[in-house]
């Protein structure tokens, strides 16, 4: 660079701290972290053990059952959720196609981890969302955390997860849940906060306790928004399941990762298709279900 001829060296190439300082700092931090993880390894194991059981149970349930049983149950759920023949037939066609290209088992593994991650995200997300809606202070504390969680690129999640929990299905599951839970929390909070003040006042005027208000008024009226949150959570866990294959989650994501590494174009495409098909099934069904819940607001008097 020509300008560098006229400038002092310090202004031209950025003065970094010496390599050895960085190396030492890294060593101290890494060792400290590893030490903590090693020291409290049994705590971490004890905490993650139930997740392991939960996940294994679902995986076995999905992969060991005969495909025809799984397919029928899935179609039944889709139909009961959406009450739409179109979506049900689409699901049947997509699942058969997945089976025919030999990805049934991998699809089941992905389905299992997505189901588990979504359930955990709902169980964690809704109560936190309710707490946030009740207090501005809690909202003020949790919002920045959610902001950070949502701005972090998904790969960056994997670093602390891998360091603390190691490699495997359960760390992958934890990463997926962390990635998928923010919309659940945010939309629960939003849904409850948007509940009509007049209706809440009426609930107060009739002497509702705060739990009666929550169950009779706030949650039912926030349900459409909460359903949108569940839909988002499902979509995000499907996306993250693919990324989490880097830390040892199996299924369609792992195949995609292999296809990328080895430039298997067709194989990658087939797995990608299977993922998209599952995503569409989940999305259509949960949206149709959400819409059906709002039946009461459809016929608006002019």
């Amino acid at each position, binding site marked *: 660079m020509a300008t560098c001829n006229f400038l002092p060296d310090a202004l031209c190439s950025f003065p970094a701290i010496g390599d050895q300082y960085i190396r030492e700092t890294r060593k101290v931090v890494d060792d400290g972290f590893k030490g903590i993880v090693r020291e409290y390894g049994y705590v971490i194991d004890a905490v993650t053990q139930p997740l392991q059981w939960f996940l294994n149970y679902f995986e076995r349930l999905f992969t060991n059952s005969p495909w025809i049983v799984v397919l029928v149950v899935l179609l039944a759920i889709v139909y009961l959720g959406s009450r739409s023949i179109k979506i049900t037939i689409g699901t049947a066609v997509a699942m058969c196609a997945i089976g025919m290209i030999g990805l049934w088992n991998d699809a089941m593994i992905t389905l299992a981890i997505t189901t588990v991650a979504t359930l955990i995200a709902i169980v964690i997300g809704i109560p936190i969302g309710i707490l946030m809606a009740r207090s501005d202070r809690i909202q003020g504390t949790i919002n920045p955390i959610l902001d950070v969680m949502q701005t972090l690129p998904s790969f960056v999640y994997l670093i602390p997860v891998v360091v603390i929990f190691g490699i495997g299905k359960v760390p992958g599951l934890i990463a997926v849940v962390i990635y998928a839970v923010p919309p659940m929390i945010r939309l629960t909070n939003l849904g409850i906060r948007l509940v*009509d003040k*007049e*209706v809440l*006042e*009426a*609930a*107060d*005027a*009739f*002497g*509702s*306790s705060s739990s*009666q208000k929550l169950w*009779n*008024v706030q949650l*039912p*009226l926030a*349900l459409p928004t909460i359903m949108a949150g569940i839909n988002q959570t499902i979509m995000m866990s499907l996306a993250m399941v693919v990324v989490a294959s880097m830390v040892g989650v199996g299924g369609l994501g792992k195949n995609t990762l292999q296809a990328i590494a080895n430039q298997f174009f067709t194989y990658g495409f087939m797995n990608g298709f299977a993922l998209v098909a599952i995503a569409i099934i989940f999305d259509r069904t949960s949206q149709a279900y959400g819409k059906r819940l709002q039946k*009461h*607001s*459809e*016929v*608006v*008097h002019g």
Partner: protein
Amino acid sequence: MASHGIEIKGLYKIFGPNGRQYIDAVKGGMSKAELNATHGHVLGLKDINISMPAGGITVVMGLSGSGKSTLIRHINRLIEPTYGEVVYDGADICQMNANALREFRRHKTAMVFQKFALLPHRTVIENTVYGLDIQGVPRSQSTKLGQKWIERVGLAGFENHYPNQLSGGMQQRVGLARALTNDADILLMDEAYSALDPLIRVDMQTVLLDLQQELKKTVVFITHDLDEALRLGDKIAILRDGQVIQQGTGQEIVLSPADDYITAFVKEVNRGRVLQARTIMKPFEGGSDGLKLSGSTTIEAAAKQICEAGQTRATVIDPAGQPIGTLDLHTIISAMVSPAVNESAQIAAE
């Protein structure tokens, strides 16, 4: 259930974070504008003293911003008072703890709202039994009660509709049925009919008056419409800028408005439907033959009866049937066109 009256004594409300601090200043005569300018607090209610009769309809009338909705929310304490007492059945509502207040709201009060405030995800019958749900009454029992009131307000057949499927007037009938099903002594109606169109409003007023005939609840009715106030109110309190500027019966307010503000209001009123025969009748002159009218007949109805009977005068009688005065068409007409009796008396004296 025997009704109890509501006594509001020296009630103040100052909106803002430190309302209590300025109570003495306001008592010392600081005005609403001054309080807002110097301290940034808004004076909602100032020294309200109203005694609301048991088993009667008390109407609180005022224009928007007069504090009437604030006032009604002090009776079930949806708004915390800054200072003062609201006494019902010997207990000061302002001093109740959270539990007592919840019980009071559950069993003693029911409220009807201007914008209906129905639960959109519940059907008409489910909305109606809401108050009983909250009290913990089993559905098997509450549904029967709810059904009865749905029929009374004229909504039979709509039990399983959702509020969104009904018109405004029908939705407010649900609101009324919900309040009545609660079987509470106090019925609070916050501009309950203001959102309805005029014909339906009159219709709903009739529904309320008919129900009140048999229920004899202590009703507090908020409105900005003087005609509505005069039609419904056993007692009327007129609010302006958070203060009561006049209270009394409809006739008292129409005949002797306390200031120019009320005079301006009263000018537009149909006096024929407010003033009663006994108010404007002349002393009894003897000869009680011909048409007899009860003292509480409105003069419009009296005029109609006299004309239909082909007479020019009638005898006014008390409930015992004794003649107490005489009413002729000329007196009726001069009372119906403003200025009213006492003013014309003044003019005559000048």
